[in-house]
């Protein structure tokens, strides 16, 4: 496989930066916008990988719809930036970061040998986008071999539509929550 181009590297760096911002930012609006950044840059990365269809869908669905929803909801709820320090959170954060890091190392350790064994790290077997990754090939697969998952996904979408409508139409009675108690 070819060496990565400079453009790809820049996109990777951008995606990583945005991903870090998602997690690190205290302001949820910026988190959501950063999520958009990650999703959009990965979409562009798909284009550089000649997966045009997947890239277009990524931008259309993820960037155009899902993260709009995030931004929209965050703005609608008018979430304020979180407080800097919450007592008792520090161990969780340390533990979480450790877990993430160790997970990364573990993954890398288990994936790298596979890549090495199959000689995938440096081979020049060129990917060819169009024939293999065009909308036709994907849709043929989805409608033949993966018919069942495809239909189940459709069912899932329907179920979530109904769930959203039910949630949206019904107003829950206000409850005296632990949140209320915590505020005191």
């Amino acid at each position, binding site marked *: 496989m070819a060496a990565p181009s400079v453009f790809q590297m820049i996109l990777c760096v951008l995606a990583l930066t945005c991903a870090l911002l998602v997690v690190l930012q205290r302001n949820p609006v910026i988190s959501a*916008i950063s999520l958009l950044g990650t999703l959009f840059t990965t979409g562009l990365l798909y284009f550089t990988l000649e997966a*045009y*269809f997947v890239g*277009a869908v990524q931008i*259309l669905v993820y960037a*155009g719809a899902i993260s709009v929803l995030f931004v*929209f909801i965050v703005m609608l709820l008018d979430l304020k930036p979180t407080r800097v320090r919450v007592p008792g959170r520090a161990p969780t954060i340390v533990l979480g970061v450790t877990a993430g890091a160790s997970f990364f190392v573990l993954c890398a350790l288990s994936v790298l040998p596979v890549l090495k064994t199959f000689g995938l790290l440096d081979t020049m077997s060129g990917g060819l986008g169009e024939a293999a990754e065009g909308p036709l090939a994907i849709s043929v697969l989805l409608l033949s071999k993966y018919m069942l998952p495809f239909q189940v996904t459709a069912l899932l979408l329907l179920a979530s539509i109904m769930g959203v409508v039910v949630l949206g139409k019904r107003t829950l009675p206000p409850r005296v929550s632990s949140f209320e108690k915590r505020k005191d």
Partner: protein
Amino acid sequence: MTQTVWSTLLVVVVAIIGMTAIPVMLVVERRGSAWMQRRSGPNRVGFWGLLQPISDAIKLVFKEANLPARAHRFLFILAPALAVIPPFVALAVIPLGGSISINGTEFKMQAIDLSVGLLFFLAITSLHVYSVLAAGWSSNNKFALMGGLRSASQMISYEIVIGIAMVSVVMTYGTLDLREIVRLQEAGAGLPAWGFVLQPLAFLLLWVCSFAETNRLPFDLPEGESELVAGYHTEYAGLTFALFMLGEYVAMLAASAFMATLFLGGYNVPFVSGAQLLSFLNGLGLDLNVSLLPAFVGTTLTVHLGSLVAVAIQLIALLTKTMFFMWVFVWVRWTLPRFRYDQLMDLGWKALLPLGILNIVITMLVTFFLAKGF
């Protein structure tokens, strides 16, 4: 002459077209509005007011762009940029004409030749909503925020309708490639085989939705001045405001070009196919290669004159169709009143969306039976 150079050149061409169309459009809008309202309109600057956009631009450039207190600086600046960039990018996938033969190689008149051009257009235009949201939120102004939220839900709702309408279009043409779609609409012997004949309902849906997508009347609730001062761009002035206006016009241009491409045969000249046009021009004696660079430059650059003229004619055809839609934008603005917000949502979800789904079903049945041969 490599493909990369050609693409770059075309990108520049597209940008120029976009930038040129805007002042023209401004004049058309202002003078057209005046004509419809039986008043004079701006007629002082230049002949018949033609230079009015220039003076407007100069005014806006020299105005102060202020930053409201406690606004989010980064997003506040980013928002106008986000308004302008996506429509321009989207414009780049529109096929502008057939192909030009340069140095014996055929070069397509399309800045970005994507196999999934239709999807790409939708994807890129769907990013437009962020500028509105970001502008609304970062202004730290309740009118702006409400305008932004309204706009976001409106645009998402109508995007769904567009997507649904496009599904039936794609089912009809069997491809996502805009160039291929235009080619399929090439005129045969009789009537133009244009998309609005094959998919009248999808055409209507897309047309209606493009008003909502570009926030034009009667769907201009995000900036409804009687309720929200000026909606999401309340706090913008000077050049940043100009960018919003620029974005709106480029979006209109892109939407018009898109509709022309899908439903009015794109760059096709009515009743004449590309090959017929070319052979006609060749018959006129244009079948010759012209060298554009003098010999001493070292590299040769010969252009086939017939194909060049053909492409020019096709470009004019496309622009004419696009201008038709642009004019309808202006026309509708002074014809229909603004919707109420719930009416807008009802129209989108309860009328247009079911119609789109109905259209899919009809298209499916027709396609199936055509393929089966009854």
